[in-house]
């Protein structure tokens, strides 16, 4: 009899049935609503392939009324589908709400019918003190855990946290006004070349150790701007691909502004936010300039006092050959005599010093580059070459690695190989890699000779080194670097090469450009632009921009076959590498800085 009772299933009563049905109904509606949400998110109804193709066809023949009608009908259909979908979501929401309400009501009714039997545990437990003790213990543990988590999180994110935007405002009153060049204290400089004068000692004292993920290099902010000679990482790659391809200096077509640069300099522009930076120098003065990116107006110019006599330089290099670098907070500049300075974006000198007058012809010309909190300086000379990292906040040396190389005028590049970040530096006798954190040499390979001017190109794990009277070498980077291929047909003494994943472009100073397969070294094409080239080519999207010495920009496709896209002329001599940001090109030419684009 008992067995029969167990086997007999009690039939669902009315409320239980309602509960079950409404529960299943709500669940199904909920799943459908979620699916609908994802479907809507995935679809882009006014940007379908079909519609875009039709619009493209219409642009070719705007008089095609039948096509116009077809597009309208298609567009209307897409809109109808969208609003139908919206209605479905709203109606589904009401259905779900109704279903859930019925389900809850049924559950309450079922619950109300149940006899509430009180279960009492015997005997009475004496739990008061135990509960309090446990609560104290877990509350303390929880609080400690919260504090430790907060501390760790604060430590990890310290760089971001220590980056108050208001830093821009600290000298807000100085903005939009010229800084009196004489106002900078020349007596800040110590005769001891290893010492740096820090304008704001309080700021220097509060410098804290910064933490960052090395593999974030180059950061999104760097990519959005143009912080260094040859772009983020200094490998000739612009992360913006919307640069204009047409302009004319003579008529002013597509020239947004043109501003005279007070002092000469062979350095190229860099861009951050609303500012464009250049440096200029002669035998008596050294200056850093900040231009308004939208108007071209010089917002400020800051004098970097000469700490020592400048060396003899040629006209081709001058006293301000090295391009400046910025990290979004300060702009860093170095001059032919080794004077180096950090200036904030309001024009205020943060620190300055001298690296020692370089023992080489033409003076110092290697451009600067920033690696998070370190300013990397390649200081190759006849004796005592070294690569150093200066603290961006104070100018103090973080590390300095001696280099057994001859004088060079190339600039350091920083590449992210995917597993680590390396500083790649080229000088006779070869290419060397350094750990940016410690300055330790990671590897080195002999591949060049002579007085090296060009910097390297890098793409897809392969670095390309070239120098006149030496050779072109493709080097697979890594702890065991290997030369993949070599060539000595087209060599450069000034412009640096540039590479995409598949193609390498080598521009020579006499005007010929050669394109190679990056992996095999197969020569795809050679084109003679019939004008000398000192500027380094830049990859911008699928195009290569290359300025010749006459001021004509040669724009061609980064492809296996040579295809010229445009040859806009500026009309002024230019030996500088252009900068790219926000759909604009910034070119130094003659004594002017140009902004091209809208």
């Amino acid at each position, binding site marked *: 009899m008992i067995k029969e009772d167990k086997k007999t299933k009690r039939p669902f009563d009315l409320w239980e049935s309602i509960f079950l049905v409404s529960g299943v109904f709500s669940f199904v509606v909920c799943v459908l609503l979620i699916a609908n949400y994802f479907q809507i998110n995935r679809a882009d109804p006014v940007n379908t392939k079909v519609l875009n193709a039709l619009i493209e066809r219409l642009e070719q023949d705007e008089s095609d009324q039948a096509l116009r009608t077809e597009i309208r009908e298609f567009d209307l259909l897409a809109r109808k589908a969208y609003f139908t979908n919206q209605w479905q979501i709203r109606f589904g929401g009401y259905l779900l709400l109704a279903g859930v309400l019925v389900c809850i009501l049924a559950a309450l009714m079922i619950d109300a019918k149940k006899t509430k039997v009180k279960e009492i545990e015997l005997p009475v437990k004496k739990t008061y003190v135990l509960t309090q003790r446990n*609560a104290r213990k877990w509350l303390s543990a929880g609080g400690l855990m919260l504090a430790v988590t907060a501390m760790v999180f604060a430590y990890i994110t310290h760089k971001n946290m220590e980056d108050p935007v208001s830093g821009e405002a600290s000298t807000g009153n100085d903005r939009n006004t010229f800084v009196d060049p004489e106002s900078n204290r020349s007596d800040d400089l110590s005769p001891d070349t290893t010492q740096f004068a820090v304008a704001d000692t309080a700021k220097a004292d509060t410098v804290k150790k910064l933490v960052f993920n090395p593999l974030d290099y180059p950061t999104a902010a760097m990519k959005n701007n143009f912080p260094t000679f040859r772009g983020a990482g200094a490998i000739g790659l612009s992360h913006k691909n919307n640069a204009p391809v047409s302009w004319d200096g003579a008529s002013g077509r597509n020239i947004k502004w043109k501003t005279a640069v007070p002092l000469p300099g062979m350095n190229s522009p860099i861009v951050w936010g609303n500012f464009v930076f250049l440096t200029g120098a002669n035998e008596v003065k050294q200056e850093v300039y900040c231009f308004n990116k939208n108007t071209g107006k010089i917002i400020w110019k800051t004098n970097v006092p000469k700490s020592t006599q400048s060396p003899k330089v040629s006209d081709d290099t001058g006293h301000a050959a090295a391009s400046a670098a910025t990290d979004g907070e300060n702009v860093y500049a170095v001059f032919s005599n080794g004077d180096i300075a950090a200036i904030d974006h309001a024009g205020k000198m943060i620190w300055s010093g001298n690296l020692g007058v370089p023992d080489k012809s033409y003076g110092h010309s290697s451009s600067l580059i920033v690696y998070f909190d370190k300013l990397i300086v390649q200081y190759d000379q006849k004796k005592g070459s070294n690569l150093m990292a200066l603290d961006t906040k104070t100018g103090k040396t973080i590390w300095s690695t001696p280099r057994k190389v001859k004088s060079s005028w190339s600039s350091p590049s920083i590449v992210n190989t995917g597993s680590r970040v390396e500083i790649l530096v080229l000088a006779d006798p070869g290419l060397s890699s350094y750990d940016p954190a410690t300055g330790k040499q990671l590897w080195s390979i002999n591949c060049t000779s002579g007085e090296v001017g060009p910097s390297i190109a890098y793409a897809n794990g392969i670095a390309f080194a070239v120098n006149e009277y030496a050779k072109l070498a493709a080097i697979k980077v890594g702890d065991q670097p290997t030369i993949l291929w070599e060539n000595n047909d087209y060599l450069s003494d000034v412009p640096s090469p540039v590479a995409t994943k598949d193609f390498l472009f080598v521009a020579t100073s006499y005007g010929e450009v050669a394109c190679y397969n990056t992996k095999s070294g197969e020569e795809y094409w050679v084109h003679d632009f019939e004008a000398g080239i000192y500027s380094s080519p830049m990859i911008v999207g699928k195009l290569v921009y290359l300025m010749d010495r006459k001021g004509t920009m040669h724009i061609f496709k980064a492809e296996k076959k040579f295809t010229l896209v445009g040859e806009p002329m500026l009309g002024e001599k230019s030996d500088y590498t252009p900068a790219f940001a926000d759909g604009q090109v910034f070119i130094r030419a003659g004594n002017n800085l140009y902004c091209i684009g809208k």
Partner: protein
Amino acid sequence: MKKSIYILFFILSAIFAFQSFPVNAENRFPKPEFEQGHIQPETITPSPRLLLLEYLDVAVLITALSLISYFILKKRSRKLVFWTSVFSVLYFGFYREGCVCSIGAIQNVTLALFKDDYHIPLTAFLFFIIPLIYTLLFGRTFCAGICPLGALQDIVGLKPMPIEAWLEKVLGIFPFIYLGLAVLFAATGTDFVICRYDPFVGFFRLDASFTMFMIGGLFLIAGVFIARPYCRFLCPYGALLNIISRFSFKHMTITPETCINCRLCENACPYGAINMPVQLKEKEKTETVVRRYILLSIMVPIFIFTGGFLASNFSSGFAHVNPKVKLAKELKNNTNYGMGEKEALEITAFRSSGQSMDELNLEVAKIEKEFYLGSWILGGFTGLVFGLMLISLTVFKYHPDYSPNKATCHSCARCMEFCPVKPGVL
């Protein structure tokens, strides 16, 4: 212990959900472009709600609070409390779409206190203050069934399970932290985070981001098994009521007469808000208690300083929530809100406003300074709450019989149904 794990899992899921689903509020369907002279109708801004109707809301709030207090204290009826909850969900929830609400009004009051150019609507102020007054008089009757958020969770709380008392205490600190954060963001004019992250308002309006629907759904599903998870472990207004209710003039009681210690109500409260009888013999040695009390009292200033120091490290991070700070940062780094080539609306608006970068930067510097000070206060407040909680767990509280914990009792009247003592019987 198993139930505690469920709760922890739920909280982690909610946090994960916050992180995982980006808010997609972009209007993906632009207006059609007409070529035949059709003029787009002007965008119409809905007119504000009639003032008279706003006062009606206040009248409804007072009436509902009076009625529910009467139902709890005089009628001692769980059923009437339940139906009042249903009414609140319908009126304050679905009809008034969760606004104005007392929880969010904390931010209006804060903003009015810190920003001279903000004038708080009278109704918002009344919605903030009236439940506080009723709580001071009758305990948390507002939570019982007037707050639409609490009422909704109360209705779905079908299978509530008790959780460990110690866990209840530990999680009890979060409403205070949330309260501090909400005050910080409101005081700096940054955001009304309580409203932005209200998990239930989307249901009332049938309109919210997918993320918020998911979070709200998680809370409701969890609410079936863990009674009122939002009220107990997050609600910032609940944190205020928790303090005020301790001093309530006439709080509800489990028994209408003298408690006979029958123990029938022992497991009745889904919120663990019943003080069990504690015998004097359970008391620890006075010497031990006093020593611990003194030690913790000395530690409180250390907790305050440590909390302040830790929170101050996040001041820049907190400040970046502020739209102006965010704008300045985007402009400074030229990151264009990650919009790629198309200029972000915020930047277009800034350019057309005529404000200079210098003016913006000076404004931002002021905001960041406020955040720095505010973060110290927030951290100090959290440290203080933490210290006081530890002290309260040291003090021996003698209870001869079963009584509601005035701080955490939501006055839902469930326990009354279990009491066999009827008024006037004893």
